[in-house]
């Protein structure tokens, strides 16, 4: 799956993730990959395709079917010098691992006064829009983001899929890495060898100063900020485009990382535009969108011309495939929210 040509080629989100892992495994013997079906099969989404073949069953292997077992074993491996990357097959199937994640993965470093850090990555395909049946489309980032001690990343572009996964593998802290499954087969005119170069040039600094955890302005605008992450960034961009036709210039901010949380980027964009809409797939109640909203009003109160509005999934269990379109934030719903931002004032 790796590409070494120098010309600008087309790369999928999936192959960017795959290459990030194989590059990290190549660079560091202590990086190991395991989970359900990640070996021979290459994962149900083929994100680990070829890793067992290339690195052997000791570096990429299938486990028995038990998610707490996978997470707990990873904790032990990280205690003993490895950098495990584990895959949860789908969002809702990570729930059996929550005790290990909340009580150990998140707390081990703090518990031991930093003597035992757990440099591990928990990869979770998440979100909907792929016609998945029950339990296959949850957006569960709020559970992890609320848990102190975990980092929570979620890339929205092919370049970030590569760069952020490498950053996640490099960090000494445990990272929950949310992969928007509807983007797996999305493509971009990105070249893996260029991404590698960017990573290498960044890496020297980033391991020390932490380029990670920074939000990105993915579209500049003046009138309103649309703040989003993961699978919703694409929708936010489309909405901004549509808004432009109505004469509204929307800036789009991709949070990229929920923890660390780039508060300054939020402040910069909202102080500039004076209005904000937060977009996320997860049910909105007690969510990451709630946090972004609360934080904006705390920090930018006097810059705001209207309340910060949220466009999120409804407060319901994720619906069946035929009904998911009604649940997910879409361009129209974002435009409706933009309309409500008290432009007459």
């Amino acid at each position, binding site marked *: 799956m790796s590409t070494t040509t120098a010309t600008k080629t087309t790369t999928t989100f999936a192959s960017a993730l795959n290459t990030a892992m194989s590059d990290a495994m190549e660079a560091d013997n202590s990086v190991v990959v395991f989970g*359900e*079906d990640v*070996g*021979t*099969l*290459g994962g*149900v989404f083929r994100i680990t395709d070829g890793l067992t073949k290339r690195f052997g069953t000791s570096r990429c292997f*299938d486990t*028995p*079917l*038990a998610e*707490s*077992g996978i997470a707990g074993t990873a904790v032990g491996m990280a205690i003993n010098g490895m950098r495990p990357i584990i895959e949860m097959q789908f969002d*809702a*199937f990570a*729930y*059996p691992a929550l005790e290990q994640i909340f009580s150990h993965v998140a707390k081990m470093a703090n518990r031991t006064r930093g003597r035992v850090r757990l440099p591990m990555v928990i990869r979770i395909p998440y979100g909907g829009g792929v*016609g998945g*049946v*029950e*339990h296959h489309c949850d957006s569960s980032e709020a559970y992890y983001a609320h848990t102190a001690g975990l980092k929570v990343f979620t890339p929205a572009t092919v370049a970030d899929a590569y760069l952020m996964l490498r950053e996640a593998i490099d960090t000494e802290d445990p990272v929950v890495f949310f992969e928007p499954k509807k983007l797996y087969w999305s493509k971009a005119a990105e070249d893996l060898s260029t991404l590698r170069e960017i990573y290498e040039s960044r890496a020297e600094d980033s391991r020390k100063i932490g380029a990670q955890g920074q939000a990105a302005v993915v579209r500049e605008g003046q009138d309103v900020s649309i703040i989003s992450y993961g699978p919703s960034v694409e929708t936010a961009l489309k909405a901004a485009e549509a808004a432009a036709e109505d004469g509204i210039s929307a800036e789009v901010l991709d949070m990229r990382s929920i923890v660390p949380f780039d508060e300054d980027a939020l402040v910069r964009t909202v102080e500039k535009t004076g209005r904000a809409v937060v977009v996320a797939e997860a049910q909105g*109640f007690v969510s990451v969108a709630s946090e972004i909203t609360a934080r904006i009003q705390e920090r930018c109160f006097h810059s705001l011309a209207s309340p910060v509005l949220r466009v999120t999934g*409804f*407060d*319901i*269990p994720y*619906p*069946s*495939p*035929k*009904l998911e*379109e*009604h*649940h997910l934030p879409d361009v*129209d*719903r974002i435009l*409706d929210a933009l309309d409500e931002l008290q432009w007459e004032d």
Partner: protein
Amino acid sequence: MDEPVTTAEPGHAKAEQASRIFEASRSFGITPEQYMLPAQQQIQMLDPEGTLIPSDQQGTGPGHEYPIPEPEVLLKAYTALVAGRRINDQNYALVRQGRLAVYPSSHGQEACQVGAALCLDAGDWLFPTYRDTVSVISRGVDPLEVMVSFRGDWHCGYNPKEHRVGSMSTPLTTQLLHAVGVAHAAKLRGEDTVVLAMCGDGATSEGDFHEALNFAAVFEVPVVFFVQNNGYAISVPLSSQSAAPSLAHKAIGYGMAGERVDGNDMVAVLATLRRAVHLARENSMPLLLEAVTYRMQAHTNADDETRYRDREEVEQWKRKDPLLRMQRYLTSEGILDDAVAAEITEAAEQVASSLRQAMTAEPAENPLEIFDHVYAEPTAQLVAQRAQLSDELQRTGPTQGEK
């Protein structure tokens, strides 16, 4: 049930004292260990050619004896087998035509599917998984209602209470605990309900499997845990899932009896399941039954089986096809003749064709229903969100709303 709180000698487990297992094993003249461990071989009654195996070679023995079910029962099972196969193959086709979102087929495992339904009384409960469509239909649930979830209309299309069939469970082995709770509730009310709970070989690795078997044994409730060991959990073979001599060997660790059966032998499956249900009901205790079978098709339509097994292996298992074996046996015994066989095939064809027709129609789901069942009474937030969607639907017009 209003016994005084037990304070047995600490450090000593129940089975060492007077226990149901102890009583049962004594009645068979064997030790509790012999009773709880599976027989040396899997129980098998028909050979791959459909010939009845001599009773001393069936794997049975003291405490592990399984009478052959009556001819009427076997014929009923065969009827369900034929329908089950037809349903599997019809749905497989529908999936390829894009009419179903997903369908985990039990092609090859129909003997287990049918057995799990036919061994139960009407008042009993069944707790199936995503793969157990044929069990659920064999239990009497309307096939169209079962397909509601696979078509992507709603999560569960039938009323679990109507036929006493749990919703087909996806999070692995979570349903085994529901089975324990249902049995426990019945026991508290003095009802002799048996619950049959199904899972796969891979699922036995989950923590909930362990907790369910242990709770059932400690609570002494009549749950039959029925593991369809079809050799794979998606791509992962059993040898990477467990190092146990057999999955049935897990039973003794909970103080229950375990047995292993040829899951492609309809006669043996039914015989072992019926006896397990009987023992569970009589003694109010759980049992574990492992059926060794094979998934003939891919895990689901999303799966690529060529990545982890070769055609040859699949071909070998074709020879053990449960349907063919049963047909040969019943025919040779004179229980089945051509006329009856034709009737059975015809009936199965009916089911398949009604499935096909129903899947062609696209029922109009009401989008607003997504708010209606979250709570018995909707919260203020859900009322507002429902109004929002309703308004959106009105603005975009009925066409949008219905799609």
